[in-house]
């Protein structure tokens, strides 16, 4: 009987408390959203299941938990804390990105820069709320709407916040269809949403496609060397894709490699949200600030597009500004859908993808800048 009671005291049923149960509910919600609503399933499913696994209570000291050295989860989590997974994800992302639309419409790159203003506004807000500068920088990067970038910077600046920052970043990326449309509609008129983007009758040459990753990596990394771990693999992946001489490598980077990194990244980030560590007032603050960051990033892009229209002969559809956040391709898809709601024959997707891909570059530069400010 004593043995049975001892066994019972080591089970999850005995050790659980309300915090684990709350996080379990969060994990189940993520899994539900991924499967039933198909909201960013590639991210939410591994994260959601990771949250469930990470919040199964266990007897401390057995080397089971993600924060216990020598545990399997701890080893897998190593890729997160060192910034390894984000770099690998960027390699695959580069191998998947087609910069043709950006090369045809380079001025749309400015919208990718404008949407990063949310990061700096959130930096100020986080400092004002009492977060330390390194924590504030990690929270601010959520405004870039780029999960791997957020994880990378947080791993460097405030590793204790990886869980909440990653969950916030990925949650808001998944919630793009809910967060962005009201902001887009609020800041634009019907006439502006109806603006058609002129077609550019120019084909991008292979030489342009080859030169872009080289120029991009040199310029961006000279400007913010701390962004090398992200932009280096990103542009390398793109060069592999456009070179056409290493198709096998490019395809592997764009499929098996990025998928493997995404699985481990999502699962271990989810598992890192143990209720006793995760459910703190700080996490709630991070979630709130993340929402502010994402909203301001969207608004900055839209308002900057309107500002550009004051000086341009060929007007830009200001909805495109919302795609300046780097949530690829969710925000571009949302911009396209909003444009089609007003005019079903208005195709904004390719233009929005141009803003989106420049947003990826912009948020990685911001991460590099913030890192270099804080060290």
């Amino acid at each position: 009987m004593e043995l049975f009671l001892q066994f019972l005291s080591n089970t999850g049923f005995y050790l659980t408390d309300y915090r684990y149960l709350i996080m379990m509910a969060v994990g189940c919600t993520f899994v539900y959203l991924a499967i039933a609503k198909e909201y960013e399933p590639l991210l939410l499913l591994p994260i959601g299941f990771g949250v469930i696994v990470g919040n199964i209570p266990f007897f401390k000291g057995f080397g089971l938990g993600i924060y216990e050295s020598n545990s399997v989860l701890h080893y897998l989590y190593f890729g997160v804390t060192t910034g390894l997974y984000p770099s690998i994800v960027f390699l695959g992302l580069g191998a998947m990105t087609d910069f043709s639309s950006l090369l045809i419409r380079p001025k749309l790159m400015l919208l990718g820069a404008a949407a990063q203003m949310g990061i700096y506004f959130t930096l100020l807000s986080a400092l004002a709320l009492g977060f330390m500068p390194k924590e504030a920088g990690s929270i601010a990067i959520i405004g870039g709407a780029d999960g791997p970038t957020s994880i990378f910077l947080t791993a460097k600046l405030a590793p204790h916040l990886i869980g909440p920052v990653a969950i916030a970043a990925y949650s808001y990326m998944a919630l793009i269809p809910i967060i962005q449309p009201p902001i887009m509609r609020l800041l634009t008129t019907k006439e502006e949403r109806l603006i058609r983007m002129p077609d550019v009758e120019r084909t991008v040459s292979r030489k342009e496609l080859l030169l872009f990753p080289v120029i991009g990596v040199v310029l961006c990394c000279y400007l913010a060397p701390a962004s090398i771990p992200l932009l280096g693999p990103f542009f390398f992946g793109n060069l592999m894709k456009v070179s056409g001489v290493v198709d096998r490598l490019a395809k592997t980077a764009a499929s098996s490699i990025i998928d493997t990194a995404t699985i481990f990244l999502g699962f271990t980030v989810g598992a890192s949200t143990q209720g006793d560590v995760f459910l703190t007032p700080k996490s709630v603050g991070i979630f709130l600030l993340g929402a502010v960051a994402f909203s301001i990033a969207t608004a900055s892009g839209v308002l900057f597009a309107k500002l550009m229209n004051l000086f341009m002969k060929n007007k830009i559809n200001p909805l495109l500004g919302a795609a300046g956040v780097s949530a690829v391709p969710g925000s571009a898809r949302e911009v396209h859908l909003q444009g089609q709601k007003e005019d079903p024959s208005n195709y904004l997707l390719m233009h929005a993808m141009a803003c989106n891909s420049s947003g990826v570059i912009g948020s990685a530069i911001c991460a590099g800048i913030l890192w270099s400010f804080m060290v």
Partner: protein
Amino acid sequence: MYGLEAINAHNGWAMAITGAIIVMTGLTVLSTIISQLHRIIDFMENRKSKKAKTETPQEQPPVKEIQSAATALSNLGDRVDRLCLMTTDAGDSFDLITLHQLFIQNDDPHPHLTIRSLREQGYLVPTGEGRFTWKR
């Protein structure tokens, strides 16, 4: 520490403004470069092709085997009968322009020199009003 006091204490304004300016400048420069990239490539390619054109010798038109003027004129007497037949359709008398055009149509070399030699050697006899006939 909270609020503006915290932002000031941690140099927040400077970080935010500088960071925003850096990312804006960086992407503006990158977009300017890529907007001119195709022009630069076109320029380089044009320069290259021009250079290649000047370096490779220009294709010469196929050289016609032209009889030398001396050879053509040395046996003028032997050619007169053929020339007479050539001008049959032009009538008994003809002007020199017509004769010149017939020479060109028949690919006869050195039409001007030949006509001049025919005149000088008396094979072509003026009939008046700028017309000529063959010496019988």
